[in-house]
């Protein structure tokens, strides 16, 4: 009996210790399952996952940047830029995988440039990346003359439609990137500097770390994640859309914050971000499946996301006393 009581306590302890986003997500899934019969089906769940992968990667990128007390407003346009660059290179006759590699490298370069402007140039991240956002937006439009551009290759279909052990390839790719990011964050010095920069930037320098170099690497790593996101969305749309990623940077911040990452003290991590992104995709998908008129959807989504962030802020404040 006593053992049971202990276990009960542990369970309630575990449950009440869960981040608020887990709760909201759970409630949402229950509500949608009741609201529509074909909601809780494997195919739909799989849909939600596939649909959220590109945003998920951008949200990982945004999370590590927010952890450094930064922000990257150019992530969305980076996705578009990557997509455009890849297809363009293919159209010029570069082999598709080589083109992808070049694209990834360029994207990391773009990220690193952000880091350079912020660190060396001592420009607030908000402004530096706002400038970069405008520049990349223009670049993508100029490169494509504003139109979507396409290239046909079996690779696109292969990536977006193959399943390995019942799990679609984009999910695998994202999982791999998650592991990579996780290892970077928790198992390398760069990762430690992410939390350190957000927690106590002056002390980073005192510890003999070149903070500017770290920023360049961190934003460069974000560029890597965005690049993969751009490649996946290109495969999913089998074409490059010059403005496809616009606005993702904000959804990504929202996901990170809903997931418990905070702009202060280097607090948070990418685990919560997964839930944050899933919350946003579940919401969008559920509203459609439950046939909520599209007219009302945008306002509903906005309100719920705002509410989720408020709840997260409040609950954590209460927990920390």
């Amino acid at each position, binding site marked *: 009996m006593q053992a049971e009581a202990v276990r009960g306590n542990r369970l309630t302890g575990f449950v009440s210790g869960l981040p608020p986003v887990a709760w909201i997500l759970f409630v949402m899934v229950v509500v949608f399952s009741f609201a529509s019969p074909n909601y809780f089906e494997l195919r739909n769940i799989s849909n939600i996952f596939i649909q959220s992968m590109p945003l998920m990667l951008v949200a990982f990128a945004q999370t590590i940047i927010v952890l450094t007390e930064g922000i990257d407003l150019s992530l969305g346009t980076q996705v578009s830029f990557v997509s455009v660059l890849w297809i363009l290179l293919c159209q010029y006759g570069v082999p598709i995988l080589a083109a992808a590699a070049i694209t990834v490298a360029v994207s990391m370069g773009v990220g690193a440039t952000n880091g350079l402007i912020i660190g060396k140039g001592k420009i607030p991240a908000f402004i530096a990346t706002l400038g970069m956002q405008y520049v990349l937006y223009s670049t993508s439009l100029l490169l494509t003359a504003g139109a979507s551009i396409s290239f046909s290759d079996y690779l696109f279909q292969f990536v977006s439609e193959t399943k390995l052990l019942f799990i679609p390839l984009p999910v695998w790719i994202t999982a791999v990137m998650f592991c990579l990011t996780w290892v970077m964050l928790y198992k390398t*010095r760069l990762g430690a500097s992410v939390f350190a920069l957000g927690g*106590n930037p002056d*002390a980073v*320098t*005192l*510890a003999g770390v*070149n903070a500017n170099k770290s920023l360049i690497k961190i934003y460069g790593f974000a560029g890597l994640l965005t690049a993969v996101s751009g490649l996946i969305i290109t495969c999913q749309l089998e074409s490059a859309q010059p403005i496809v990623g616009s606005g993702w940077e904000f959804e990504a911040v929202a996901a990170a914050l809903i997931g418990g990452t905070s702009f202060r003290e280097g*607090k948070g991590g990418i685990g919560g971000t997964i839930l944050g992104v899933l919350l946003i995709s579940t919401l969008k998908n559920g509203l459609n499946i439950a046939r909520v008129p599209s007219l009302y959807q945008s306002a509903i989504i906005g309100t719920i996301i705002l509410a989720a962030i408020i709840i997260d802020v409040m609950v954590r404040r209460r927990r920390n006393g």
Partner: protein
Amino acid sequence: MDETILRVHSITKRFPGVKALDNIDFDLKRGEVHILVGENGAGKSTLAKVILGAYVPDEGEIFFEGQKVAFKTTRDALEKGIAAVYQEFTLFPYLNVAQNIFFNREPRNKLGIIDHRKMERDAAELLRSLNCEYIDVRAYVKKLSVAEQQMVEIAKALSYSPRIMVFDEPTATLSEREVESLFERIHKLKAAGIGIIYVSHRMQEFKFIGDRITVLRDGKKIGTVGINEVSDKEIVKMMVGRDISQVFHRSANVFSGEVLKTETLSDRAGRVKEASIVLNKGEIVGLAGLVGAGRTELAKLIFGVDPIGGGKVYIHGREVNVTSPVHMVKCGVGMVCEDRKRLGLAVNDSVAWNIMAVSLKKYFPRFIIYYNKAYDIVEKYKTQLRIATPDVLRKCKFLSGGNQQKVVLAKWLSMDTDILIFDEPTRGIDVGAKIEIYGLMDKLASEGKSILMISSELPEIIGMSDRIYVIREGRIVGECKRAEFSTDDIASQMLGIVGDAHAS
């Protein structure tokens, strides 16, 4: 080669508005503890940081083991084996203890992957050597107490296996037990031939661990002496630059009527416990206590910055509902904060607007500002307090510490409140400015203003106060009138010990 491990030759370092170090010579031998003392702002931390590569000196040279070195960053110094416990908080709240201790030096494999297990083992061992095995190496630093955090800072510095260690006020936030462990460790380091630079204000520590002592004042070196060659009194005299009696001037005053009274005042965090104090018209009341005793917390409660947990505040005999500084200023209370740059001033704003910050609504109750009038007011206080600035529109960050403090005082003088709380009013300013401020406080009191003064400098608090409250761990533990003042008594009350084992 002689046993000097480090030599600093005519170092000068300037900051906007101050010469923090002026032509300083300094040396450190193997296996010695070299103590650096001086008043707040004397330049101790700056000297330490120059040695550590955190600041690049404007002039001068540094020799490490006879070799000239030019550190550009702390990394350069760390590579030579010069590590430090800084005065500031240098930990990262959301990294764990082990990660903090080995930050940027984590053991890793060829792929760059950190070996957490080894790191945690090493961290635990280090902490054990400091008698701190109770600190969980996997806990976020954020969750530790202030003292525990300080021990982690010390462990972090030790983990570099340095050849020179710099301790900048390491004991300020430690309890006795931890101080003992630290000293034990310092003695071991000494025995191992490591040179130690030790910055502290606590005189009683000097004799216990020190070998030589260097006194700084206003960025200048006053002298270096063997620890056994001087008395505490002489050290104080070197620090202050003149006899204490010359510095403090207090006119005899008659006090009439209570202006401020607190009744069992407590905060919510438990740092202030049932404090009852009284302040009379025309009186200067000192609040003595160790760093962390809760003096600032009490002041913040009275000024309405922090929410009150229990108790009452009376002003002119009437109970007031302490809600916010806005309200307390209306009730006639003003506060000069201890942290000038963070809380006292908008350093990027001009002198003029800083002076007007509080009193603006008093002079311009109808919302609209008339520049001519504002300008006249600013000029008046600039002249009255002799604030040295070529232009009242100059940003405060370009002023020296003393002048900055005068700006803060001008801000409150222009508001003309009856009650003033001065928290460390002379921290980090030169002696000249100090004397001016003491004179001003005396004048204010004789004009019938009441002052509650918090200070960590006993001579100052004894020299200026009409009455003193001693506060320890959030409680008022003693009260004495000017006639009964005795350094010994007050110090032992502050420390919570009975007897006279302490320096006079």
